[in-house]
């Protein structure tokens, strides 16, 4: 299925996000399934890249959808539905990071080792481990906001205007955080060839 970052996947939900919101508000059960199917990959991907952990990402992604369903009446349509879902997902993931502060107290190598062994995703286990582990470790050093901006810009390819909307900051702040994050990553990974 072809898919871009805005969610136009060719599905009914992707083609008509406003219609989807209306049906959700009306309590249409099929609309819930469509929303999950339409956005689950992006939601999970963002959660995973912020948290760098399979189980935590799955839990955060599910929580994001539950929250979307619970609060759909509060969605006023001032932003697009995907921006709103991103915002909820990033908030949940960042809160999880804060709650799991102890993870930062454990040596980074241990975290990476544990996460990889515990991964329930066979495809992930097959990916070149050294580079991925170094990236894991480097991302762990980014402050929360930089991490969120980095994920949304680098991997999700959102514009700084969109990121500003998702994170509730200015475009300038988003840019500054992104540049800091990229420069940090460059330093941390410079010895990898």
């Amino acid at each position: 299925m072809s898919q871009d970052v805005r969610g136009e996947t060719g599905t009914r939900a992707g083609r008509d996000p406003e219609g989807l919101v209306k049906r959700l508000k009306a309590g249409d059960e099929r609309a819930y399934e469509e929303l999950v199917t339409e956005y689950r990959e992006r939601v999970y991907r963002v959660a995973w890249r912020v948290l760098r952990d399979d189980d935590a990402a799955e839990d955060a992604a599910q929580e994001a959808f539950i929250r979307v369903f619970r609060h759909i009446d509060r969605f006023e349509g001032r932003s697009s539905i995907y921006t709103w879902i991103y915002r909820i997902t990033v908030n949940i993931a960042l809160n999880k990071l804060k709650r799991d502060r102890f993870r930062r107290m454990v040596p980074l190598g241990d975290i990476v080792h544990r996460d990889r062994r515990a991964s329930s995703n066979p495809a992930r286990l097959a990916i070149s481990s050294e580079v991925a582990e170094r990236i894991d470790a480097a991302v762990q050093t980014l402050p929360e906001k930089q991490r969120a901006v980095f994920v949304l810009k680098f991997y999700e390819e959102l514009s700084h205007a969109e990121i500003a909307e998702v994170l509730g900051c200015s475009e300038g702040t988003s840019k500054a955080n992104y540049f800091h994050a990229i420069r940090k990553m460059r330093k941390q990974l410079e010895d990898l060839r």
Partner: protein
Amino acid sequence: MKTRCDGIKDLLIEYIEGELSSGDARAVEEHLDECENCAAECAALRRTYMLLRDDGYAEPSPFFWTRFNARIRARRREASAFGAGRWGALAPRLAPVMAAVVCFGIGMWLGLRPGPEPAGYPAAPLRVTGMGRGTPLAASPTAVLPVVSARSKYLVDSGAIEPSFTPAADTLRPETFDPFGGEARMRLATFEREAYRMPETERLPGEPRAGE
């Protein structure tokens, strides 16, 4: 002072991502052609970008998504069951807790409700002829006393309380106001009670503070 190289390095991320205007991009390229340091920095950044692309994320399998959707359905069912059935089942257990909270609230209200108006509220220019708070009507039928304080006047004017006795101009004129009327006394007492019951903590925006 910022050198030319610093300026170029600031643009490298946007250059690599293709977000520079064609003029800026050309300027960066020209500089990179003649500056080894900046060219090396640009190459290192490009290398970082390549590495980051393969960050270990792998698309989950279709089975994962089937399970994912099923778990969300289950969590939704659980959430709505909690809202209806489970809440009902929990209610008897929560009832004593709720009762304790209500009793505590009433106790707090009784303990914290304001007493007589604190000293310091200036008397309003508005004055009632013939009666004063706590002054027996018969004792001072013609005295001019500051019955309506700045606070109670403010509360009435702002609509925060609906007094059964509004000190409208005509009722305050000695010739139309019967200080001995039992009904007038009752209404004034109600008004004063309501005005003073409004706790200070519920001060309205713009309301004058005591002593102001």
